[in-house]
């Protein structure tokens, strides 16, 4: 083993360098400069927790962005998961359309979210969008909206770009379900359990870990949604659809207020950790690992 020492070092060094360059330096910079007053053209000066105080007491749009992000996390970890798990339970009964539906349902997850955002911008366009065309035909002109720009519908419209698209959840759950042995189902049906009862009392409890994992992925993905927001509403109208990544982007790259942006980054990471820990607690995932 000792003579392998140089190989161990040689094999690990590139990965560690990359990690340090992209992650470690960034995190040190992020946390460090979040306690400074630093914007473009001015020199850095230490300002203690002033950025944080400002964000939580004076910056209304930032507070809105936190609330919106939390709302989306909540929606994503409930409805989104329900759709994905529900579909997995249906498709697992190997219907003729199983592989077709599973394949098709994953397409929106596999393309660039920027493209998905633009696609939704087109189909919900007030003048020529598909959604308004259909609504006009079925219900009449008065139900037509400017979906992304109307303050009443903007939040809903943005939510619709990701909430139903639970293809990843379906795929993860179905992969895990494939590992349940047939004998368990047989034993259950001999005992007189209907397929619905089997799903509720046998399959779902066995899926606890994978559903927990899917929930973590779905919930934390809401901390990443810059692309769709930037392509559709840009956080507007007002701050109706502002989320934390979008607000951070604006602060850092439009206002060039780096200190303030990095304080937001720290809060974003903390929110991510809180989400992760809560989901793990709720699904009691700590025991297995």
């Amino acid at each position, binding site marked *: *083993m000792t003579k392998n020492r140089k190989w161990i070092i040689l094999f690990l060094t590139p990965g560690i360098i990359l990690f340090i360059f992209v992650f470690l330096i960034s995190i040190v910079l992020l946390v460090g400069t979040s306690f400074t007053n630093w914007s473009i053209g001015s020199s850095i000066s230490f300002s203690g927790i002033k950025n944080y105080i400002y964000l939580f007491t004076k910056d209304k749009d930032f507070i809105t962005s936190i609330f919106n992000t939390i709302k989306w996390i909540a929606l994503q970890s409930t409805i989104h998961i329900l759709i994905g798990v529900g579909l997995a339970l249906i498709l697992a009964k190997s219907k003729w359309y199983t592989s077709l539906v599973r394949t098709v349902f994953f397409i*929106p997850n596999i393309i660039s979210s920027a493209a998905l955002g633009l696609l939704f911008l087109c189909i919900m366009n007030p003048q020529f969008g598909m959604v308004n065309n259909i609504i006009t035909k079925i219900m009449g002109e008065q139900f037509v909206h400017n979906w992304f720009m109307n303050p009443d519908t903007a939040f809903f419209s943005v939510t619709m770009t990701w909430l*139903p698209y639970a293809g990843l959840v379906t795929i993860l759950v179905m992969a895990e379900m494939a590992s349940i042995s047939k004998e368990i189902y047989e034993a259950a049906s001999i005992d007189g359990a209907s397929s619905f009862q089997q799903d509720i009392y046998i399959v779902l409890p066995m899926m606890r870990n994978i559903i927990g994992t899917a929930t973590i992925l779905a919930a934390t993905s809401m*901390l990443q949604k810059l692309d769709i927001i930037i392509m559709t509403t840009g956080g507007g109208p007002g701050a109706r659809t502002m989320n934390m990544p979008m607000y951070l982007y604006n602060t850092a790259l439009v206002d060039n207020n780096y200190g303030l942006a990095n304080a937001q980054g720290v809060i974003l990471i903390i929110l991510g950790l809180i989400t992760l820990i809560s989901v793990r607690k709720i699904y009691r995932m700590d025991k297995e690992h």
Partner: protein
Amino acid sequence: MKVITPIKKTLTFIFISFIVIISVIPFIWVFASSFRGNAEIMSSVSGFPSGLHFDNYVAAFKIAPLMIFYKNSVVVSIIATVINLIIFSMAAYVIVRCKFKLKKTIIIAFSLALVIPGAALLQPLYNTLSATHLYDTLAGLIIVYAALGMPTTFYIMMSYIQTIPYTLEEAAYIDGAGFFRTFMQIILPLTRPAFATAGVLQFLFCWNEFQFGLTLTGDKMNRTVPIALYYFKSSFASDYGAMFAATVLVTIPSIIIYMLMQKQIISGLVSGSVKG
């Protein structure tokens, strides 16, 4: 029981139809619209074009330097994927097979990368890349992408290498092969499926990535394909036909890769996320 079944069947049918409709119709509509003239887009209610107009595609290439974006995307995605695979397959191998002091620390550090939302890194990376003169270069983007794909590749590789019986390597050592040769001739050929899985995921990630591409490049000579869409959205909002065409052009490669490599993608997502 007998009453419930038809209701259940109907509900299932509605649910499945809903899923298929929301996943397919928007794409078909945009695809169809990309062949229609601007006037037709504004007036027509039906989704189907009256004829095939490729004008939108011609316009799309005129409005944004799409060829350059495509070339950049291909270069960045391929190189970042190769670098990512080489570096993290090596790291994963050593982590799985060797005993050393900092092993735990490295695993934890590499996993931490999973819980950091990308947006938090935007400004710091912009800063680091500017300081190292990598801002607005393809090389900078390649380094960042290779690192961002780290957790997924690392986990896929680790879980795959764990399934390889150690006796193979032992035999190689007994035959006198060194550490490096064992890795190259025994491990690499055996881990080919894992390379395919991690590789296709990494490639798709690079191809689709938007926020770092937008933030870490400035000149249009160094932008990637997804950023082209931002172009269409912000500066040329009036030419809807070209916008449709651009959406199709960006989306099609991802869908083709997905159709061809579905098996690898699914198994990669499963092993990559279950571990994390």
